[in-house]
């Protein structure tokens, strides 16, 4: 049985990257605890509009945990304490108690400037992918799926790495603003497969160079990223990226 809870929500307001920003708060009353967090924010916005206030801006898209658009830092954790390592959209109000104060902040990192309120510009990730996160393939008729044999374990691990949705929680959680978990997952998903090997060295170098150029920090292996990753990426990927990068540089 769903029960209703009332709580205070403190949400971040900021007009663009240069603005200092501040918290506003709002009293939420009788919200059913089977409401999703984003639905609760929709209710908040309806109430704000009714009061003649500016709605709270936040990113969201698929609301089914696969697109990586939602990006809220809830009570000190990226995506909040979701039930099975999922994104903000999979967080439900039953995770909170009556009378709680819920603090909602944007991803805070120099690499992700705030566009408005809790919507941040994560196009830096797209630029890193554009630098090398692909395989160059000739178009034409696809070859037989079994023409290249891939061990099941490698295929599974590549799939796990590919499940990174680029939400940026790793950067948000990292005290160094490092994007290594994202970059290493994207390098790994291709480095693990034979189709990705021919360009593996070039890819690792190009993506790391772009990551550095965009001002992301140096990884110091605190593991905060893997602790909050909604897709359970691990720092084994970071070790693989280090290996790929060092090997590539030594082979130059």
């Amino acid at each position, binding site marked *: 049985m769903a029960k209703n809870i009332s709580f205070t929500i403190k949400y971040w307001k900021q007009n663009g990257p240069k603005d200092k920003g501040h918290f506003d708060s709002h009293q939420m009353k009788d919200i059913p605890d089977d409401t999703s967090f984003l639905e609760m924010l929709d209710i908040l916005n309806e109430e704000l509009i009714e009061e003649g206030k500016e709605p709270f801006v936040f990113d969201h898209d698929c609301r089914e945990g696969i697109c990586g658009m939602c990006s809220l830092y809830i009570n000190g954790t990226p995506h909040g304490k979701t039930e099975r390592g999922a994104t903000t959209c999979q967080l439900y109000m039953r995770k909170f108690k009556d009378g709680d104060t819920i603090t909602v902040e944007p991803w805070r990192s120099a690499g992700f400037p705030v566009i408005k309120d809790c919507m941040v510009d994560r196009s830096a990730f797209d630029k890193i992918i554009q630098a090398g996160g692909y395989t160059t393939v000739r178009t034409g008729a696809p070859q037989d799926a079994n023409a290249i044999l891939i061990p099941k374990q490698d295929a599974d691990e590549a799939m796990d790495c590919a499940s990174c949705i680029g939400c940026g929680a790793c950067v948000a959680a990292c005290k160094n603003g490092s994007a290594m978990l994202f970059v290493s997952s994207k390098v790994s998903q291709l480095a693990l497969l034979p189709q990705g090997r021919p360009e593996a060295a070039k890819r690792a170098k190009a993506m790391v160079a772009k*990551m550095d150029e965009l001002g992301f920090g140096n990884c110091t292996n605190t*593991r905060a990223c893997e602790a909050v990753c909604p897709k359970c990426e691990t720092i084994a990927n970071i070790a693989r990226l280090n290996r790929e990068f060092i090997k590539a540089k030594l082979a130059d």
Partner: protein
Amino acid sequence: MWLFKSSIGRKLIMSISGIALVLFLTFHGCMNVVAIFSKDAYNQICSLLGSNWYAILATAGLGALVAIHFIYAFILTFQNRKARGNNKYAVTDKPAKVEWASQNMLVLGIIIVLGLLLHLFNFWYNMMFAEIIGQPTMGGYEATDGFSYIQQTFSNPVFVTLYVIWLIALWFHLTHGIWSSFQTLGVSGHVWFNRWKNISYAWATVVILCFLAVALAFAICPDSLGNISGKVVPFAM
């Protein structure tokens, strides 16, 4: 050069200089334990590592390693603060798997360097430095009489306390530093991550216990130590 210009290159510098320093600490710790058992043997080691050119060269190398590790720690921290931006989170919740040491390596490192300066003042200054400048009895004992300097230092409870704090900071630093070095080198993965982590804790604990044993033993019962005497077979130099 990629070693200085890329984030992974800079981390590699930290990693390799760190591993070299861990190996030195291991050697130093083993050497210290000798003092508990034999004054003669310990002083023999001190004279071997006195002011000959090999020892001075190795000391200079060590100094360079510490300097590189220290300077890069600041460079990395500065860059990381910049990457993090000026806006701090109002609420932060530290996940259980994030170890305290991993987020405080710079602070621990600063404590370690301060301890190192005290240590150089207590020992190196009176031993190798005294020999280099030609005043081997500058500190009150012969420059090669390391055993007496240990007795003297740890008869002072203030020094004992400072050394214990120093060693605890060093233990925390090593528990993260060792596995982190191998992670940066890329020789880690799903299986080796846990292995390196266990090796880190075991290695750090053994090394620190070697140092701690000497400091505490000399603080508690300085007169009953180092009694195994007799002719020590000299090293062929």
